[in-house]
């Protein structure tokens, strides 16, 4: 069964809508559950007290909570890496929702929050959900994403109804089953912790033993089959472990957001890692951090649902990585594009100064500011800013004209330093060489080449220039008859 989720957006939207709708129904049916999730009054002294308690880790319960959420973060991060790289994100979401009726059945069976019964029930429901998806896929024309959506919301609805009934039963009220919806880390027991540990050990063992097999079958399933690798068996084992991982993490993250802990840390890792091993490490550490911070925040706010807090932490980490990661991060890209646009503006001003000097037949070494403003088509303020930027980089100097007519304020003049002159010549040269190349070699009409050259002049490298010169055999005039400053001119420092 191949899980390509091309229409992911649609299905994602569907699951969001179903969540909102069901959430609405749920709110109406279960007011007592929601009220139980709220903070019991703002007590600031207790706030620090609780924070201290968490960090000192003296309490047994705090240790269980911290350890449990970190371990869950690690196993979800690792499983999530495989879920995300195999494009099974929605599959994890479906699985976590589908186990809810199983939990309810397990509870009814044992008439208490017996871990084993809940686990068995959840596993049963999870596998039933997977079977439903497979059957829908096999016997109908329904696409993968719709099948996932149907199973996700259908099972979840059944689960909610059953849970509502249980809440109204005699033994139901104290059950704490509601913790399975949003997650409640403080309800984590030592027994739960054993389950969490077991799932982490199983996952780690599975991944270390099958690392290269998982890599091959994930990257290139067809090739995997060709080397007689049991890709299907691996896939089923992966699903089974995924179910186990989700079920053991429900207590902490909750049914509704369980898939977030699978998807978000792994998606963050995909922004950073270029190999599967580092992918796994990053996802596991991000999962651990999210789990710990989420648990801590939940602990502070006494019985604040843990799931949303963990997801918030994970999302925040994702955002941080998105903005600050090296090479392609939003910040790096922004800085790069800022620097580039500054450079282009500077080069355009240098070129404009050159062109004005050229119009005066190179008779003067400085030009009036007004001429530059006209040439660059800028206001005086902006033009001054450009000139200041040039003089800061040592390309130009601004001065007041001593020979301006008396009675009037002295005129501002701009002149290029030798360094600036060389730079300006190079840009003009790039521009005109490119124009010539386009007309001579690519058969452009002379009136079509200017705009293109305006962009290309800033990105032509030294090597390309040498090649252009070779192809055009060191030309002196551009298509419009203007002089192309040669290397000798640039070195001599002056033209005309």
């Amino acid at each position, binding site marked *: 069964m191949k899980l390509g989720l091309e229409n992911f957006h649609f299905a994602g939207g569907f699951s969001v809508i179903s969540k909102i709708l069901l959430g609405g129904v749920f709110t109406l049916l279960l007011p007592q559950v929601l009220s139980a999730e709220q903070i019991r009054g703002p007590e600031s002294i207790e706030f620090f007290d609780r924070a201290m308690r968490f960090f000192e880790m003296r309490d047994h319960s705090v240790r269980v909570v911290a350890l449990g959420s970190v371990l869950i973060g690690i196993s979800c991060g690792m499983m999530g890496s495989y879920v995300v790289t195999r494009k099974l994100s929605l599959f994890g979401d479906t699985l976590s929702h589908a186990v809810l009726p199983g939990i309810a059945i397990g509870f009814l069976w044992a008439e208490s929050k017996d871990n084993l019964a809940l686990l068995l029930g959840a596993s049963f429901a999870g596998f039933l959900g997977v079977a439903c998806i497979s059957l829908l896929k096999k016997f109908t024309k329904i696409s993968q994403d719709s099948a996932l959506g149907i199973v996700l919301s259908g099972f979840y609805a059944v689960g909610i109804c059953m849970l509502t009934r249980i809440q109204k039963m005699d033994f139901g009220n104290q059950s704490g089953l509601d913790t399975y919806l949003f997650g409640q880390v403080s309800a984590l027991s030592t027994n739960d912790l054993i389950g969490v540990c077991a799932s982490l050990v199983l996952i780690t063992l599975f991944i270390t033993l099958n690392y290269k*097999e998982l890599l091959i079958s994930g990257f290139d399933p067809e090739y995997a089959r060709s080397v007689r690798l049991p890709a299907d068996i691996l896939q089923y084992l992966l699903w089974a472990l995924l179910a186990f991982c989700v079920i053991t993490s429900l207590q902490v993250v909750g049914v509704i957001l369980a898939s977030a802990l699978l998807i978000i840390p792994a998606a963050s890792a*995909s922004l950073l890692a*270029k190999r599967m091993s580092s992918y796994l490490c990053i996802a596991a550490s991000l999962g651990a951090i999210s789990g710990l911070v989420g648990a801590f925040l939940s602990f502070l706010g006494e019985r604040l649902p843990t799931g949303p807090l963990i997801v918030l932490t994970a999302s925040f980490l994702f955002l941080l990585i998105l903005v600050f990661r090296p090479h392609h991060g939003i910040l790096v890209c922004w800085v790069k594009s800022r620097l580039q646009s500054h450079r282009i503006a500077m080069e355009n001003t240098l070129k404009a100064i050159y062109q004005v000097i050229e119009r005066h037949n190179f008779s003067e070494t400085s030009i009036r500011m007004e001429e530059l403003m006209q040439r660059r088509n800028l206001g005086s303020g902006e033009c001054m800013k450009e000139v200041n930027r040039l003089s800061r980089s040592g390309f130009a100097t601004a001065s007041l004209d001593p020979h301006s007519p008396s009675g009037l304020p002295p005129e501002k003049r701009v002149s290029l330093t030798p360094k600036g002159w060389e730079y300006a010549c190079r840009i003009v040269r790039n521009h005109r060489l490119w124009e010539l190349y386009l007309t001579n070699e690519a058969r452009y009409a002379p009136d079509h080449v200017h705009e293109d050259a305006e962009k290309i002049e800033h990105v032509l490298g030294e090597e390309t220039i040498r090649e252009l010169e070779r192809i055009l055999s060191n030309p002196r005039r551009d298509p419009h008859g203007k002089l192309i400053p040669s290397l000798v001119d640039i070195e001599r420092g002056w033209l005309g």
Partner: protein
Amino acid sequence: MNNPHKPLEIHDLTVSYQRKPVLYGIDLEIEEGSLVGVIGPNGAGKSTLVKTIMNMVKPNGGYVKIFGRAPKAGISRIGYVPQRETVDWDFPVTVMDVVLMGRYGHLGWLRKIGETDRRIACECLEQVHMLPYANRQIGNLSGGQQQRVFLARALAQESSLYLMDEPFAGVDAVTEKTIVSILKEMRDRGKTLVIVHHDLASAREYFDHLLLLNMRKVAYGKTEEVFKPDLLQKTYGGRLSILSDMASKSAGVRVIEKEAYFTEK
């Protein structure tokens, strides 16, 4: 090298999708050390033939034998290069990782990648001129480079029979030349290569044997015996009327190609 069995033997093979035959009564025997091009129009069953040999599609009749064995057992002796699009190129693996995947058949479960495997992978990368890119993530490569990595993985497999599905699809002229020279060199070392190819113009130049396929086997034999206007006409039906010109003018084809190459640059 003295293998009594042919690398690839196909007898009366029929494959159909939903009762529509795609391949019908195909007989084929490929000798060791031949470089075979499989050509035919779109929908002629070229990919189906590959998939059947690779045991991904079950035939309705007839059989495939790989070195005298059924595909299920024989496929481990095939170096398979799937079409480039079948793979997720954003997957977190480096070029080196992909080439090392070629060593899997020699390792098996629980065995670690050793020094020898790494050395072989490096040599294979060197052969396709991709060694400088060994630590790149595969998503950062051009189409031609990706195809060369695939070829390096196939080389690392050290198989005796290679099956490649459209290795020239969407690659640049330089890569195409590199791949062809490597394929010829592999043949000279006694490997058998079966290559699905879409471009009739270059088929004559690249392969020493051709299989003309259009649901049925139209012809199989040495290129100079098979690359005949009447046979090609039969393969492509009326769909390509310029075919007869093509065959006689194939000397001019190289010139056209060169021009295309320069305008690309």
